[in-house]
């Protein structure tokens, strides 16, 4: 393993220090570790908080700023942050309007965020949660931990962030969060595993003619190994899976502030259909050149056109990575006028910026 690191134990701390040095509008708290925008808390605005394991840069700390997150909690590499981090970060960004926590559906994230939500509620903070589970590679939630939360998280943070600026209440944001989550579909493939620094070697080996299909963002193998031939074949298979696996029913737990407990809500994703309008995200899992990402986007456009989807907006680049995994994920988020209007609102963060 040859990586630009000093000691494995110091990586996260050095990344965080570098980020705030490069972007002085962010403030880093140490012990517990969290990052907030220097303007937080913003009066009359719900505070938005997300977090997760490190290694997905620029997610989440790179999305702190105007029109997106107020704070983020980076955990250790690929490891969820802890409840004390989330609790103190939430308190630092709460203007009195409450805090929305955006949680990716991974067991560790869910367990730690749920613990934090309970502690925050007991401490008198208005807290609500939105779960992201957009990875269509996982077909059922009965025999798994449910679909993973992957790159749609980025699109949701942007849309919910704009809504918070516009004065949406905590309850309105939860409703919008459910809608945006239920409308988002992602799928990833890996051509080469990433190397987790603590492990020191690639997480799996892949021959040149094979790919891991349906990977998450933690370097683990996908749902199956498929043969790899070329770009078009790969994108076509990904697109087909995104379309075929649209319908998905599951139960999502949501914090009930009135009754101080978790409530289970049945949620249904409807498949994408001809005539839908989408935001398309072609996301680098870490070690794929931009040239290949644009080529993927080119093919994706053809797939969408042939199927009858209109791509209203797009993002192509590194937004939700898995260290140095060579691979790509595609996210299609069905939009309506409300979400598209929120997407177009100004955003000013280290990793996403427009109209300001």
């Amino acid at each position, binding site marked *: 393993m040859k990586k630009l690191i000093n000691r494995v134990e110091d990586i996260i701390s050095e990344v965080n220090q570098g980020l705030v040095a490069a972007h002085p509008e962010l403030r880093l708290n140490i012990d517990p570790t969290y990052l907030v925008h220097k303007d937080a808390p913003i009066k009359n605005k719900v505070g938005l908080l997300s977090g997760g394991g490190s290694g997905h840069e620029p997610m989440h700390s790179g999305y702190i700023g105007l029109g997106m997150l107020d704070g983020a909690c980076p955990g*250790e590499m690929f*490891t969820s942050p802890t*409840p004390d981090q989330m609790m103190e970060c939430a308190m630092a960004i709460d203007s009195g309007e409450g805090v929305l926590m955006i949680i990716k559906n*991974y*067991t560790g994230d869910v*367990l*730690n965020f749920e613990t934090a939500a309970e502690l925050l509620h007991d401490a008198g903070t208005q807290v609500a949660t939105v779960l992201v589970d957009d990875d269509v590679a996982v077909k059922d939630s009965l025999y798994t931990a449910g679909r993973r939360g992957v790159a749609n998280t980025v699109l949701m943070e942007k849309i919910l962030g704009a809504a918070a600026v516009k004065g949406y209440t905590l309850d309105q944001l939860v409703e919008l969060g459910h809608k945006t989550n239920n409308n988002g579909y992602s799928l990833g493939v890996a051509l080469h595993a990433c190397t987790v620094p603590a*492990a020191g070697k690639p997480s799996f080996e892949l021959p040149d003619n094979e790919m891991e299909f349906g990977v998450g963002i933690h370097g683990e193998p996908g749902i199956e190994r498929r043969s790899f031939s070329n770009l078009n074949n790969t994108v076509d298979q990904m697109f087909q899976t995104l379309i075929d696996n649209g319908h998905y029913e599951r139960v999502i737990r949501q914090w009930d502030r009135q009754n101080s407990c978790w409530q289970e809500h049945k949620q249904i994703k409807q498949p994408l259909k001809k005539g839908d309008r989408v935001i398309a995200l072609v996301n680098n899992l870490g070690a794929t050149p931009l040239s290949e990402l644009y080529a993927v986007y080119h093919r994706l456009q053809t797939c969408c056109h042939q199927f009858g989807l209109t791509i209203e907006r797009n993002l192509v680049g590194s937004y939700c990575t898995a260290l140095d995994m060579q691979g790509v994920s595609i996210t299609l988020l069905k939009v309506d006028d409300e979400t598209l209007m929120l997407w177009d609102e100004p955003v000013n963060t280290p990793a996403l910026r427009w109209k300001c």
Partner: protein
Amino acid sequence: MNLTQQQIYHWLIQCSQTFAQEQNNLTELDTAIGDGDHGLNMNRGFQKVAEKLPSVEDKDIATLLKTTGMTLLSSVGGASGPLFGTFFIKAAQSAAGKEALSVADLAELIKTGTEGVVSRGKAEPNDKTMCDVWWPVSTALENAASQPLNEAISAAVEAAKQGVESTIPMQARKGRASYLGERSIGHADPGGTSVLLLMKTLQQSL
């Protein structure tokens, strides 16, 4: 013979050495079906426990266990942090007011802790989680209630070993390994292996 406060203290401190030694083995297990950081996370957690625990060295058993749980909760992260944290925090409640633990007390403590883990993680038998090791450990201790402490703990370690073995052919239905489907078969559960290490370390501290 009862399990004394000093033995519990010694056990929890010794865990920092156990997880330092076993870090790489756990990481290897976790690389197969997870993301390869379980060893690092458990080691980080128990090093923190070893730093924190001396400040409550003379306190009762419940305080030792609760401090351990809170420290794991705030330093491990991932799924293991809340699960092992919850185990010790719940176990502490069962030890409240006790100066020493009989085998029956220890059985009750492990049972209470296990119930806490199950309630937080919603695991069911054969999901391929640490609970598939906690349950047999708990049962073994209950069955050994009339035996001497060292024999009861030997039985618990044996049950933990078999519990870990039993996870190998299972397909994971909880946690990150569940995404691998059938490919999760053939590997021992890393969290369950950590439970075995905890029990082995308890045996060594007698």
